[in-house]
């Protein structure tokens, strides 16, 4: 028998120590993994084990200048069943079909279906959802959700806009202020095994959603409501295609009302008019029609402003000094520009008149004369300085730009037509904004709705400021313009805009739509009050009125009625 030798023993001890060192090394490795790296791997493992369900965040509300909520959220419920957790299928079928007013057959099919989770009905009223929850049925899940709700229905629909299925803004303020309104989605984390089966004992972990912030806007729903009413009325009586009304504060650019009838129901924005034959429309056609319905004529479309634009020509002429209020003119009923004979709307001519009278008469030859005196360079200079070549920058999506002659293409005839508001196109909001700048002392303001963003408790989070370009005209020219335009309403072509007890300035316009000779007109009136220190400016545009189509007869009364109602409300009526 061979005995164990000393070196054998030594080597065995060596092997033991080698093993021990290996073990110590591995323990070190474990220490590193399980202490230093523990947080990292725990997080990773958690991500792997948890299934995420998102919880919609309540969207911020939209609140008007009086604090009235005009876009809100309604809690709705989604009722679903989880097949594996159902204990009393018959009872569930009975209760759900009764509460949700669904056929038993329909509910039974879903209750008996082998699926992880089956939706029975969504957008269920909260009361119904609560009632179902109160039954405490195993396997029935009632998930709460938010749905956008507009208490005023179609009021200011084109301004507010609406939201889509994921509560995201689609048009209007809803999309413009998406980042403030949308909030942050929350999640429900459910622990599952590798196949996605929920592990009961682990329970749920919730990451609460962060609600969106409230948007405070300058819109006044009282004015909006009244303006809409007037617009609807005139659209009906004049059988017009469309009526737009903008009411804004000319001093700071805040929009008080923006109407573009026909409006649409914000709570049901995808509904087509009932009169329309929707039988064989393709999806594309339907979408096109909807886009038309959602279009905000006040900012998305341009038109030929016509005589209201004489305000701009007058301001440019006075500012440049090519005309004064006392300048005498003679209107024979037409004017020759190069070889063209451009007629005045009064074929017999206005005869002898000074500049103020010419404006009151809305005399085309006089304004052509002023335009020609300015010349292309100067006219273009003022056109640019007044901000007409740029968009107004209103906080609504899809603002259209100005369509204007290129300076190098502008000859005397083009200059002459532009001088009385033809042969180019601007948006209604552009006209209202430009005139605001001229009558408010020369400050080109940015029209806007958004005032501030605040949290649910009303704590201000952000207040918006908008650029103002100072001195586009002098204070003196501005005052002169206010005086002239007050005369227009007092005893000129805009006398239908006169409001008893108030000082109103304004200008009418009647323009033929393109192509000429179509017999379609746009009647409009731009008024502001009080004339000496304008606090409110309103522009009413009636598209294709039937019968009498003159702006002075159709649009001016609309603004008058509006002012009659809102001036006392705004505290700007002088009863003395």
């Amino acid at each position: 028998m061979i005995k164990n030798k000393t070196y054998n023993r030594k080597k065995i001890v060596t092997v033991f120590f080698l093993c021990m060192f290996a073990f110590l090394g591995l323990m070190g490795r474990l220490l590193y993994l399980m202490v230093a790296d523990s947080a990292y791997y725990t997080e990773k493992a958690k991500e792997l084990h948890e299934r995420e369900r998102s919880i919609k965040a309540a969207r911020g509300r939209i609140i008007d200048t009086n604090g009235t909520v005009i876009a809100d959220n309604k809690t709705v419920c989604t009722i679903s069943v989880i097949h594996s957790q159902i204990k009393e299928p018959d009872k569930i079928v009975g209760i759900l079909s009764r509460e949700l007013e669904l056929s038993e057959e329909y509910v039974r099919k879903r209750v008996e279906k082998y699926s992880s989770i089956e939706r029975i009905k969504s957008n269920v009223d909260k009361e119904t959802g609560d009632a179902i929850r109160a039954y405490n049925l195993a396997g029935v899940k009632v998930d709460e959700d938010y749905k956008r709700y507009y208490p005023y229905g179609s009021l200011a629909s084109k301004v507010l806009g609406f939201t889509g299925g994921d509560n995201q803004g689609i048009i209007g303020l809803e999309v413009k202020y998406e980042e403030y309104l949308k909030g942050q989605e929350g999640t429900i984390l459910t622990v599952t095994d590798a196949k996605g089966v929920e592990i009961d004992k682990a329970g749920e972990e919730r990451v609460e959603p962060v609600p969106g912030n409230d948007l405070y806007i300058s819109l006044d729903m009282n004015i909006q409501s009244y303006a809409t009413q007037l617009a609807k009325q005139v659209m009906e009586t004049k059988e017009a295609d469309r009526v737009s009304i903008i009411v804004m504060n000319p001093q700071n650019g805040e929009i008080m009302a923006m109407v573009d009838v026909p409006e649409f129901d914000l709570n049901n924005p995808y509904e087509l008019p009932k009169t329309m034959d929707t039988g064989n429309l393709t999806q594309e056609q339907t979408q096109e029609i909807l886009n038309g319905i959602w279009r905000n004529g006040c900012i998305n479309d341009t038109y030929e402003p016509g005589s209201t634009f004489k305000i701009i020509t007058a301001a440019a002429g006075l500012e440049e000094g090519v005309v004064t209020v006392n300048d005498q003119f003679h209107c024979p009923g037409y004017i020759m520009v190069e070889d063209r004979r451009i007629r005045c709307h009064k074929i017999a001519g206005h005869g002898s008149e000074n500049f103020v009278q010419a404006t009151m008469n809305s005399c085309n030859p006089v304004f052509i004369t002023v335009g020609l005196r300015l010349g292309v360079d100067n006219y273009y200079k003022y056109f640019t300085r007044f901000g007409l070549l740029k968009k107004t920058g209103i906080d609504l999506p899809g603002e259209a730009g100005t369509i204007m002659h290129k300076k190098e293409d502008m000859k005397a005839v083009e200059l002459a037509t532009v001088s009385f508001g033809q042969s180019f196109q601007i948006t209604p909001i552009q006209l209202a904004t430009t005139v605001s700048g001229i009558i408010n002392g020369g400050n080109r303001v940015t029209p806007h709705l958004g005032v501030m963003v605040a949290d649910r408790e009303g704590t201000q989070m952000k207040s918006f400021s908008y650029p103002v370009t100072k001195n586009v005209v002098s204070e003196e020219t501005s005052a002169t313009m206010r005086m002239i335009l007050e005369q227009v309403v007092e005893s000129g072509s805009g006398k239908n805009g006169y409001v008893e007890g108030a000082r109103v300035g304004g200008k009418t316009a009647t323009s033929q739509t393109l192509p000429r000779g179509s017999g379609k007109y746009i009647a409009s009136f731009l008024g502001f009050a009080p004339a000496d220190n304008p606090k409110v400016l309103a522009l009413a545009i009636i598209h294709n009125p039937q019968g009498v189509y003159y702006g002075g007869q159709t649009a001016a009364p609309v603004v008058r009625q509006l002012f009659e109602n809102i001036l006392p409300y705004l505290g700007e009526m002088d009863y003395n």
Partner: protein
Amino acid sequence: MAGRNVGRKRGGQQETFFDYTLLFIVLFLLGFGLVMLYSTSSYEASMEMGDSAYYLKKQVASTVLGLIVMMVIANIPYHFWERFAFLGYVVSVVLILLVLTPLGIEANGARRWINVFGISLQPAEVAKLAMILFLASLVCKMGRSIRTPKGFMIMLAAPLPICAEVYLVTKNLSSAIIIFGIAVLMVFVSSPDYKKFILIGLAGIAVCALAVYLIVNAADSDSLSFRGGRILAWLDPEAYADGKGFQTLQALYAIGSGGIWGKGLGQSMQKLGFLPEAQNDMIFSIICEELGLFGATAVMLLFLLLIWRFMVIANNASDLFGAMLVVGVMGHIAIQVILNIAVVTNTIPNTGISLPFISYGGSSVLFLLAEMGLVLSVGRGIKLKDL
């Protein structure tokens, strides 16, 4: 400790020794292993087999059988087995070849088992035991000639045919490595030389480093083999999270999420189908997840205690054959434990090595217990007066 293991007097004057410490450690590991196996496998077993104790029952059966075998072997003087040394070697060679015959069983995409009278058996496990027996006997036969270069070469060459066979026939690199590792350790103990082994060790490290270097440089070409991919996944498991690195990454999630105190027994998430082979090669990571660094270290200390007992028995064995047998078993268990833990902690590239006494596997536990029987038998040969 050993002092307490004094056997009762038997008839005469001579006091015999029985290593109850070793027996207790083994029993404890087995019991602990069954608890962990049940914890790890019950969810999957109830989902897949409809019986949460499916794996547990099979393992208990193997364990009971193994304990009987162990006690039988422990009571047979170990020299009895010396005559079967060569036969064992031959039987191993034949059994491994049987894998290729219709007796072979394929499972999990590998053909590593054979069917013997309705029981599946992994020939590589037989080969490990046979190799220990064969080399122990060879060392004794060679005597002093083991010091000559020729003797040294014979000792190292002896296991190579079986290693090659295990690797080529059953595509089981890890078992081949373990068998070769056992052989190297036994040769190391039997030879008085150190230098050669240091050189072999350094050469081995150099070869591994070179291989890794070549594979990493060839990473862009798509000619990479099965094992090449494993090396890359080892270096950056997250980059191969959907493929070769998946299991390793899942094991790391389990280990890392255990933290210091663990999630508690039965609370593992990774065993719920996330970690493949959780009850086999990856069981240690579930131990880490459920029992934390504390539990994992305790398990490792138990294994270290076990190896320490092997050392004590080997050093006090009454003859070289007994000592070499114990050294072989010691090498076997030490190598498997170290490699297993190294794999689950991603210290070395992923290769399938089970954790002795704890991982699920009937053949493994059966032959490990047979080896324990041998060690206990060697322990019995120790004369107390020699201690």
